[in-house]
């Protein structure tokens, strides 16, 4: 599966959030970047407190209070892997395990990449693969990746798109790949296999403008595996 196919597969798993409440209000306004559509169903007076049913391709997946859903989507995004994560957030994170985005800035992608790197650091073992479209992009992150490799048992692989003028890329603790893979030059990716835990996650993004990227990030084990096999 190519990286493009991974993004498409994530997009196909789009969820529908059925919002039951007396009024639609502004529910869902903040979910634009999420891989979900919102439908409103009016509740009569004296009904239950507003709640949300999560569906995917017709299948009923779960129900949550509207307040819990809104808190889940509100920035800052609750830490997906925190041990203190309460039950509804864990269940929501499992259901809404893909995020497909149409337009994220470089700064936002760096923040998402950092979340994946932090997670890999905390687990401390397993494989972490990251692609850099230019040598300067790698240089900016070089210390971070050296530290990831040196201070953990992580097997860190870095992919740098080849540049004719690039000087030697020798690293002791991490493996640098300079294959002329079209995936590497086209996509920004970071993927962590979880190191035997359920902490796997991956980000794939393609640049579409000067400071605009589209793509997906996912916590789904199969999609993460697809990213790893596409690049490794």
């Amino acid at each position, binding site marked *: 599966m190519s990286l493009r196919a991974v993004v498409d597969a994530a997009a196909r798993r789009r969820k529908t959030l059925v919002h039951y409440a007396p009024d639609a209000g502004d529910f869902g306004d903040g979910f634009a970047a999420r891989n979900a559509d919102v439908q409103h*169903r009016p509740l009569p007076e*004296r*009904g*239950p407190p507003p*709640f949300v049913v999560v569906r995917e391709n017709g299948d009923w997946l*779960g*129900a949550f*209070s509207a307040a819990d859903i809104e808190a889940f989507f509100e920035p800052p995004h609750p830490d997906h892997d925190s041990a203190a994560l309460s039950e509804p957030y864990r*269940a929501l994170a499992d259901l809404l395990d893909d995020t497909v985005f149409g337009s994220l800035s470089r700064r936002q992608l760096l923040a998402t990449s950092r979340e994946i790197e932090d997670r890999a650091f905390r687990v401390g073992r397993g494989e972490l693969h990251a692609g850099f479209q230019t040598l300067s992009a790698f240089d900016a992150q070089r210390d971070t990746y050296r530290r990831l490799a040196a201070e953990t048992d992580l097997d860190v692989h870095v992919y740098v798109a080849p540049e004719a003028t690039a000087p030697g890329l020798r690293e002791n603790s991490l493996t640098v790949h300079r294959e002329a893979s079209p995936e590497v030059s086209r996509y920004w990716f970071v993927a962590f296999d979880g190191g035997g835990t359920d902490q796997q996650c991956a980000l794939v993004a393609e640049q579409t403008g000067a400071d605009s990227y589209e793509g997906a990030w996912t916590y789904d084990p199969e999609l993460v595996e697809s990213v790893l096999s596409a690049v490794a």
Partner: protein
Amino acid sequence: MPEGDEPSREDFSADAWDEAAAEDFVDPDVLFDALADPTRRRVAQHLDGAGDATIEELADVVVGWRLSRERVIEAAERERVLTALHHSHLPKLADAGLLRYDSDGRMARAETAAPVWDVVRVACEYANHAAAGAGE
């Protein structure tokens, strides 16, 4: 509490009770049995307010009420709700004159006489208050 000296609720249609014919009154044992279950009260209350609904929507509403006690409802529980609605609750509500099956598969609020729906509203109101009191 209702305002003024009049003891009846504002939406309690006292005149309709006097005007109703004998056959407008559903057998009280059947009616009270229909209302002797929280799921059936939720469904009756929803139909009274919404007019009609699919069985899927009714199951969602029943699940929605349970979210007051549990923070997550999973598919297996919702499936049990759906089965119980289909085999037990909806037929009992239909017997009590509270629900009719539309030709297009929707469940509709039955056009039963006003006294019957007065009893439904009072019963639901009573149960909601009792539940709220118990939670304090």
